[in-house]
């Protein structure tokens, strides 16, 4: 037997997360339950350690497990976004979810699954990554078992998730069936050498795989679970999965579609473009009428996914770069927004009703200003990070001839202005009520999260060049596969 070269470096962050989770579970055996929440900090440390090794790994592309997984720049960049969102899950989790070892372990595993999904280059690992991502999230969505909405979220997520996993799996089967290969590189090679058993298999496979990932990305019409699950899940989990899942699914979609399945042969490009337009229009329109902040952010997230997918539809290196940038941008602004919601919430999501934000600027100026910044960033107002993000995507769209895509983005953004800016207006309107619905203080970790996200939103907004250069390398890396 020829054992493959495992190359632990290629999965170093994953190993760190896994080790941390094991340690957490182990410690939990000896820790009194009331101190269980301290494990949260352990999780934090684990994630920080994983983040810390990313720059080390940046130097060189590491291939592991006989080519099943690569730690290239693309993967590392996506990992960063995922880890940041995992960080948020820990930082924000202290108050709402009463975390213990189980919470810590589940979050870490979900993050692990996400990271595998973005770095796996072979169908089996991709599938496993998707499942490792999904299963903990089903549980996490229902983590507040005392809340009907949380349980309902778990149920909906589970059933829809398993259903779409089935579809995804069937798609993988067809990709496998078309070429007899499971590694993306060899699939691509087979396609390019016209060595496919039947071209339609590729199309079916690409379609079903896209549907499965579109489900995770919350593209219309596969998005319907998103508002319910985001609303019902505990806020830290929502923050985590809204960003992490999208980053992971984006990574996988990029690897499978733009890298493995050349758009000239497998005709997914118009499809993805259509889905993108549908998604961003639908998401923005549906967000208009929301009264619950989390639900509004869920629809906003759908719309944002639409923008993100435009980057894929551009089917170019620039598009991939734009998508990566946007994922990072989205991580900062979206987590930031959820962080403010969490900071305003105690046990019971007091911060979810938009109406209760009235006059916030005069009661909690720091949070109100931060929220304003995040919402403006989501509305892609310069000089906040959402703007260069969207600029990059527009650039990619226009340069691949997709002026209509660009116009669609613009129309979607126009619609979005209303719902992003109405809360801002509300926060800056003097309120007659003296009674604040929010708890008087927030946990310090929430403030830290808000601060970090604010810094990211501003710094990357003003100096997008910090990211664009490295991302350019990342794009080359993925195409150099």
């Amino acid at each position: 037997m020829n054992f493959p070269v495992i190359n632990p470096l290629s999965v170093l962050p994953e190993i760190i997360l896994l080790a941390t989770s094991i340690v957490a579970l182990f410690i939990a055996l000896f820790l009194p339950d009331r101190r269980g929440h301290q494990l949260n900090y352990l999780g934090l440390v684990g994630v920080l350690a994983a983040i810390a090794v990313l720059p080390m790994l940046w130097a060189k592309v590491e291939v592991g497990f006989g080519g099943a997984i690569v730690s290239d720049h693309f993967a590392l960049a996506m990992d960063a976004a995922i880890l940041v969102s995992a960080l948020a899950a820990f930082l924000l989790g202290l108050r709402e979810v009463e975390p213990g070892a189980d919470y810590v372990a589940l979050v870490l595993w979900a993050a692990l699954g996400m990271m595998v999904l973005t770095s796996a280059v072979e169908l089996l690992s991709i599938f496993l990554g998707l499942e490792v991502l999904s299963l903990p999230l089903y549980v996490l969505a229902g983590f507040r078992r005392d809340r009907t909405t949380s349980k309902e979220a778990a149920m909906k997520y589970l059933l829809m998730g398993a259903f779409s996993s089935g579809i995804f799996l069937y798609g993988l089967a067809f990709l496998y069936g078309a070429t007899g290969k499971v590694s993306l590189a060899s699939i691509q090679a087979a396609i390019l050498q016209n060595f496919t058993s039947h071209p339609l298999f590729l199309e079916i496979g690409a379609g079903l795989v896209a549907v499965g990932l579109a489900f995770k990305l919350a593209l219309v019409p596969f998005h319907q679970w998103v508002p319910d699950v985001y609303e019902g899940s505990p806020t830290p989990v929502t923050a985590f999965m809204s960003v992490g899942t999208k980053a992971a699914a984006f990574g996988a979609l990029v690897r499978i579609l733009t890298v493995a399945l050349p758009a000239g042969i497998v005709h997914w490009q118009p499809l993805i473009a259509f889905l993108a337009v549908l998604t961003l229009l639908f998401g923005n329109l549906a967000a208009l009428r929301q009264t619950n902040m989390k639900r509004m952010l869920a629809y906003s997230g759908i719309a944002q996914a639409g923008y993100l997918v435009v980057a894929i539809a551009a089917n170019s290196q620039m598009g991939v770069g734009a998508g990566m940038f946007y994922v990072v941008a989205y991580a900062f602004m979206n987590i930031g927004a959820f962080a403010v919601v969490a900071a305003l919430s105690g046990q019971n999501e007091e911060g979810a009703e938009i109406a209760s934000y009235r006059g916030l600027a005069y009661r909690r100026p720091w949070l109100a200003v931060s929220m304003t910044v995040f919402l403006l960033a989501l509305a892609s107002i310069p000089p906040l990070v959402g703007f260069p993000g969207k600029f990059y995507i527009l650039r990619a769209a226009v340069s691949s001839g997709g002026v209509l895509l660009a116009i669609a983005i613009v129309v979607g953004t126009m619609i979005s202005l209303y719902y992003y800016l109405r809360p801002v207006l509300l926060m800056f309107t003097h309120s007659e009520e003296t009674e604040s619905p929010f708890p008087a203080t927030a946990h310090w970790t929430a403030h830290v999260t808000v601060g970090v996200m604010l810094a990211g939103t501003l710094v990357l907004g003003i100096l997008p060049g910090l990211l664009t250069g490295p991302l350019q390398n990342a794009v080359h890396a993925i195409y150099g596969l």
Partner: protein
Amino acid sequence: MVSTVVFWLAAAVAIVGAGGVLLAKHPVHSALSLVLNLAALGVLFLLLHAEFLAVVEILVYAGAVMVLFLFVVTLLMAGTKTPRDEGRFRLAYQYLLAGLFGLILFVLVAHALVGADWMSSLAATNAGGSFGSIAAFGTALFTKYLLPFELTAVVLLVAVIGVIFLGREHGATRK
């Protein structure tokens, strides 16, 4: 020749089992139909030289998993009750559309499959070499596909911890 007969028999059973899952009123009946379906699939796996997987399918799936299902069906008193009738037509055209698009899906995929001419040339017998053997399977699993195999460990861990968490009496263990 035998294999042809076995295929048609197993296929028929599998379809019947699937139909049972789809149509049976009581969940227990559905579960039993699914067992039937899985058993038939096991037979088909055998025909395709996947002896090990056939065993796994029947042992793990038809055995362990379905027992778990039945266990839960009986655990949930509510599960034995059928859903209220008044809600049946709440999504009236759901049935119509689901059936229609299920059919379209099948037709689309089948259309692609029928068009694939290479399919006819398969010899059901000896594919040669060690294909389908446990040894070959094990080799593949532990060499080329080591990473996914390792990941299943995480999946199982998730299952364990998740179920422990969910099964715990709420609020009993903390504070």
